[in-house]
């Protein structure tokens, strides 16, 4: 299955940052123990707000910014197979320590990857994750269209998420089903899911 990039003719989804109530994201944050060391892998872009959120914790934050560094195009265009996992590994940041990853923030990146590409990326992530690690993701489900590029999600003080993606044209969302995700999350299984007010499905996966 490929991600369709057909242009849509609907009004922009993100003219102003949407404040999303994302209970599973909040749940992940609530379970972070300030006194325990945690390794977080953020597949999105770096944000001062996210760093501030973790500044009081004993965290190591690994930031991949997969979309900006050409990761989506690279993964979507490569031949499926073991080589794809190797390519995916190169998209992940080099590590300061060899502590396993505890939490993965996927944001809406899965919508911009083909299913084989998603599987390869999550397999590569799984190889550096501990058993029981969680992955949080936002998947376009009820909404048929999505922005051309992945969003830039920023946590707010009241525990919500704002999408700071630049407004622009829309493309058709792949609207992956839970079954498709189950088969292509590289060992991460669905733990919980919630339908959000903007038509996105919020998922929490467990390795």
């Amino acid at each position: 299955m490929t991600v369709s990039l057909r242009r849509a003719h609907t009004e922009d989804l993100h003219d102003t940052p949407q404040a999303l109530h994302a209970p599973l994201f909040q749940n992940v944050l609530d379970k972070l123990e300030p006194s325990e060391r945690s390794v977080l892998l953020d597949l999105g872009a770096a944000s001062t707000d996210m760093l501030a959120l973790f500044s009081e914790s004993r965290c190591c934050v690994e930031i991949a910014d997969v979309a900006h560094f050409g990761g989506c195009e690279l993964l979507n265009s490569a031949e499926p197979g073991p080589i794809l996992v190797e390519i995916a590994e190169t998209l992940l940041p080099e590590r300061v320590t060899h502590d396993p990853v505890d939490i993965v923030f996927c944001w809406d990146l899965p919508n911009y990857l083909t299913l084989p590409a998603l599987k390869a990326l999550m397999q590569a992530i799984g190889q550096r994750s501990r058993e029981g690690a969680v992955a949080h993701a936002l998947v376009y489900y009820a909404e048929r269209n999505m922005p051309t590029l992945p969003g830039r999600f920023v946590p707010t003080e009241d525990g919500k998420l704002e999408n700071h993606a630049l407004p622009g044209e829309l493309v058709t969302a792949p609207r992956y089903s839970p079954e498709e995700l189950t088969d292509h999350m590289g060992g991460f299984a669905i733990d919980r899911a919630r339908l959000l007010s903007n038509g996105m499905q919020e998922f929490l996966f467990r390795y």
Partner: protein
Amino acid sequence: MFERNKKEDHSESQDFGSSEPEKTFGANRKSKPRKSDGLATIGRSIQISGDLRGDEDLRIEGDVSGTVELRNNALTIGKEGMVHADVYARSIAVDGETRGDLYATERVSVHVNARVQGNIISPRVSIEEGAHFKGSIEMDQAAVEKVLGKPAPENKAKPEAAKAAAQKSAKESSSNLNPPAGTA
């Protein structure tokens, strides 16, 4: 090799305070960060390959690859600067591009439109919206101290020595106040 920027233009180095000339130029060079009468700059046409060390604040607008060590000073990588090196400094501000690990005992600031690939090890890190960063940021204070060493504020660096000095000082003060009997 280096250009001296004699102009009093501190607008782009404001992160690191003023560049006032040090009154005791040359004194305690090894132990105190030195501030020159102008910010040392590696110009945009300069390419350096190898180890770069120094005791003054530096701005890089050219290409540098290898290692950069300014352990007591501030480094600014300007908009035109490209650094492919592990960098050790007191503070690091990036407006340009870096590939390599950034170690700063005080702070790392990644400004808008900067491109940074590598790990950041520093007690304080800020990344502006619009900057592009790929790597790890160690925010665990214990892990940062393990790599960079504990911060050593004055009077706390060597508590035993400070205690001994204080006792000696108190003893001397005491002896001055109480001259030996029979001398009055």
